[in-house]
């Protein structure tokens, strides 16, 4: 068979084999990734979606650090039950300032994409420190250390915002210069709550909440 003759060439030549694997395995990725990375609509902010403030960004990084996305998705699928349970379904344009994306792959706890504004700050504070005090039967861990650490200790906020600006997030010089002052006297738990409270509020317009 002709094909087998060709293959005998490949399997007797290390270079050809390496090249063959690289070439054949790259096709699918190129076909899927290139159009997606070139699609402007996926980079266009929806509604009044805006970059995270210094406090929210700090909160988001704490959310990542504690691995919240291991148990909570941030992605409401366009299904009746999901929209009823969580709110308007998620749009790509709401995530343009999400580096990395935090959609998650598992809902051990509920989805959090539209959690913003659903509960009071005090509810979140109690819930994060003692989840079963407000949700009996919850299996969420408590995060007592968040109430002990200064928000400003969770990484250099100026460097973070500068970095994100280089990646295209429209922070002004004034926002970056004032970032450290914003975090003053705040604890990590305050920053995390600020992040949770703005989650999913970027849609605006008639689809908004």
């Amino acid at each position, binding site marked *: *068979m002709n094909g087998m003759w060709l*293959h005998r060439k490949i*399997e*007797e030549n*290390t270079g050809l*084999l*390496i090249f063959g*694997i*690289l070439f*054949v*395995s*790259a*096709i*699918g*990725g190129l*076909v*899927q990734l290139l159009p*997606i*990375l070139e*699609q402007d609509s*996926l*980079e266009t902010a929806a509604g009044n979606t805006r970059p995270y403030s210094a406090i929210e960004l700090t909160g988001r*990084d704490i959310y990542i650090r*504690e*691995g*919240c*996305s*291991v*148990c909570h998705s941030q992605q409401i*699928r366009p*299904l009746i*039950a*999901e929209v*009823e*349970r969580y709110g308007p379904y998620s749009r*790509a344009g709401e*995530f343009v*300032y999400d*580096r*990395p*994306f935090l*959609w*998650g*792959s*598992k*809902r*051990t706890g509920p989805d959090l994409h539209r959690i913003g504004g659903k509960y009071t700050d005090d509810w979140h504070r109690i819930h994060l420190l003692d989840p*079963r005090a407000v949700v009996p*039967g*919850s*299996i969420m*861990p408590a*995060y007592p*250390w968040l109430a002990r650490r200064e928000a400003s200790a969770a*990484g*250099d906020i100026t460097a973070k915002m*500068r970095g*994100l600006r*280089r*990646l295209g997030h429209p922070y002004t010089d004034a926002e970056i210069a004032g970032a450290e002052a914003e975090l003053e006297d705040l604890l990590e738990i305050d920053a995390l709550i600020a992040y949770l409270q703005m989650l999913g509020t970027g849609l605006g317009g008639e689809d908004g909440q």
Partner: protein
Amino acid sequence: MEAVSNKVYHDTVVIRLIQFSVIWALLAMLGGVWLAAELIWPGLDFGQYWLSFGRLRPLHTNGVIFGFGVSALMATAFYSVQRTSHVPLFLPRLAWFCCYAWQLVVLLGGLSLLAGYNTSKEYAELEWPFDIAIAIVWVCFGVVFFGTIAMRRIRPIYISNWFYGALIIVIAMLHIVNSLALPVSPTQSYSLFAGAQDAIVQWWYGHNAVGFLLTGGFLGMLYYFLPKHAGRPIWSYRLSVLAFWAFVYSYIWAGPHHLHYNSVPEWVQSLGMVMSVVLLAPSWATMVNGIMTVSTAWEKLRTDPALKFIVLSLAFYGLATFEGPMMSIRSVNVVSHFTDWTIGHVHSGALGWNAMITYGTFYFMAPRLVGGELYSSRLANLHFWLALAGTMLYIVAMWAAGVSQGLLWLSVDDIGELSFDFKDIMASMVPYYLLRLVAGLIFLAGTFLMAYNLYMTVRGRPARRAVPPAVAPAFGVSR
């Protein structure tokens, strides 16, 4: 031919890698059991940040995949590439560097995850300094591996090496692209991609880390150790060629099935789904090839625990590669996505396929590496039944949990109101989670038995001096 037989295979590094692999298996699975317990008794983190579920969970997955899995793949790749090339390892010192540098990356990386340095991208959680270290060690692994093949004394490159080769090349490609990020401090970076685009890149990586590491790499193990062990050549060479290229081509497309109904364009979801279903063909072609290879050696199954593990792993491979394409169909995925069904699917692959074939291979290699007998076949047999029981119990518990979650979450009554509260569904999971904890403990107990058995087998014995056999002139290469 005389010059060849003066050279001795480098097997001490193989033994060391097996030892590290077993240690990671114990630690990472212990972590898994602890996590399973935390989902029932959330107070088990004792208020310690480093024991918190969200930090421990990436340690569990990274420990299993990169500690246990990759160490086992390096060990078996080094073992089999020498024997299929009839030459000792190319640059053995670099092989030793790979061995220790990799363990250091996994150890420090694991600690960094507990410290909270986490990118949150699944199976790529380690921060940028580790990403660079991984890339360096990986390239060295490739140099040793392909260098050995380039020096080979036998003309054809045996099929197991294609799979190990695909593992090395494709994982390098995926790792580099998915890790592209802008560092803002030594412990933190922001992804170069944002939102929906980041999601597509991440699952292109995430699915194919499963594809080329946990499937492709371990298929390399299968193609060398199964025929070797059964004492039969691969049933159909032609089928293995076909299955290999079909596998390399089609796996890479399947990533978007992790994003069904998510905020990504529908064409990419559909494409991911179709290619995931297509993937069933090469996956099962390999399974059929493996089953047919042992089909004339069934009697060995009665006496040989190592072969039992490998054959059973093939069955779980068939199960998981059937379940995967089914779960990637949108109308099934709508139920399974975000539920414990996914966790069950992952474990039918990780426990049933990856761990079992590795266990079988270790039981096969350890006595041969030191030129002795396995310390206890009875313990290995007991381990086999513990591993099977643990895996089955795990999968069944997670199927039940996952399907109930999926259906109950989506359930609405006559007037379109939600039937169940999220809290109540979550609270009803306790029995399944208890069952899963028991399953994990059983599987872990088996792994402990193996660790003891292998330790007693190799204890105090140096690697046997194995020399390459002569190559039939028809296949030889004169160098």
